[in-house]
């Protein structure tokens, strides 16, 4: 048994082992399939969530700015705050709740039904065969989701600005994009990779550890993967933003 004090170190240790497993050649076909599956399953959620969030931000910004007669500036707030913070964060949240939960419950179900032991009995390493492809899939899907989140969030803002607030179409686009620079896209890429990695590691970890047995254990693993994934997504978003944007303040 592992002493209680060492428990917080388990996740980083697992992250290291999982990363090392990536270098030991995970099965190519599974990896390609998982990458496409993770992207296809997460993208709709990301797009829907961020579209409505962009819309909501626009309504909220308009409500705050209208008293100052600065309704037209609402696009700026959405473009600035959305692209820098809100959309990447929600992309990470969507990834955690869609893919993270799925990976954790899938791996845990394989463990409960002893399929993982069956692999070990064949002399195969589940870390290479099961964990590494899923981790790669998350790391690839991360940036894709972040960019999709930015685009659909901005489109959400545009649609509300144009049709609900009655702002001129090209003016709305111009204000939305006026605060977005190439640097923000690079930051989005970095955030995407980090968020994908965090979500993937947490999900695989929760799916691999022995906690509760049986069907309840499967649900509990999914649950922990989502919540812990979301918490770590928020903390790493803050960390990255503070590191990157904090320097230019």
């Amino acid at each position, binding site marked *: 048994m592992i002493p209680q004090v060492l428990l917080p170190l388990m996740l980083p240790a697992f992250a290291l082992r999982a990363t090392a497993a990536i270098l030991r050649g995970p*099965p190519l076909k599974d990896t390609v399939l998982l990458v496409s599956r993770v992207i296809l399953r997460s993208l709709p959620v990301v797009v829907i969530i961020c579209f409505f969030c962009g819309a909501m931000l626009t309504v909220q910004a308009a409500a705050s700015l209208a008293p100052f007669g600065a309704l037209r500036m609402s696009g700026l707030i959405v473009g600035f705050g959305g692209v820098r913070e809100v959309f990447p964060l929600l992309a990470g949240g969507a990834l955690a709740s869609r893919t993270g939960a799925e990976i954790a419950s899938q791996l845990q179900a394989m463990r409960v*039904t*002893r*399929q993982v*032991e*069956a692999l*070990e*009995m*064949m*002399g*195969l*390493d589940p870390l290479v*065969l099961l964990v590494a492809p899923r981790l790669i899939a998350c790391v690839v899907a991360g940036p894709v989701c972040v960019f999709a989140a930015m685009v659909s969030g901005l489109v959400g803002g545009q649609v509300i600005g144009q049709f609900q607030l009655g702002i001129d179409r090209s003016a709305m686009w111009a204000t939305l994009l006026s605060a977005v620079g190439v640097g923000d896209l690079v930051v989005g890429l970095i955030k995407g990779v980090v968020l994908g990695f965090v979500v993937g590691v947490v999900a695989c970890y929760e799916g691999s550890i022995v906690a509760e047995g049986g069907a309840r254990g499967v649900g509990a693993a999914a649950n922990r993967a989502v919540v812990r994934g979301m918490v770590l997504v928020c903390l790493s978003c803050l960390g990255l933003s503070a590191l990157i944007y904090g320097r230019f303040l």
Partner: protein
Amino acid sequence: MTVANEQSAQTPAIELRAVTKRFGPRAVVDDVTLSIQRGRTTVILGPSGTGKSTLLRLATGLLEPEAGSVHTLGVDVFGAKKHELLRLRRRMGMLFQDNALFGSLSVFDNVAFPLRRVQRTAEPEVRRRVDELLQLVGLPELGDRLPDRLSGGQRKRVALARAMALSPELVLFDEPTSGLDPQTSASIDQLIKDTQTRLGLTFVVITHDIESAGIIADDAGLLLDGKVHLFGPRATVWASQDPRVRAFLERRAG
């Protein structure tokens, strides 16, 4: 057979020396010393929850004991390096209680899995070998089905075919007849017996099914409260007058 294998053929298939395994405060396996011979079917009997499954997992290195040593096929399981342990496991096959078939793969792909992933066998050879194995377990027609479209007995047969895929020297069975109806149990017993006689492998079976043990066992052991109560040739065990052995074999409460 290679020279090394012939030499190691002298050693027992599984040898446990003073092995103890605890879950929390309870010793599930308590100071067990046991030697299982090659080329025979050995059945370990015992009521549920007496550490039978734990014994199997100790023999394969899936669980680690608190004390004692385990030698399987001549290899010191807990003194071995990780890659040595993985290589040892490839010389064993295991049938899990709930079969542990890969749910997303067809019957054919399940049986082919160890051939493709472990041995990296060429595809025509995989096809030939899988057909042979499905023939062996009496399911030549069902290669395309998914596991959850099979009956319990059919699933058990697929699991046996998969366990036999890498031509193991030792096959471990965890409760092979639990959850099956009496008739299906009998046919699985027959399959195990026939396969063992035909191939002369070492089979180790964990079960609480006395009827099944009576058919397949060459040697038998009774595990009670984490200790080996009695071990020997089946006839000896069956003839024992020890009250606890009699109680178990005659399915009396007590």
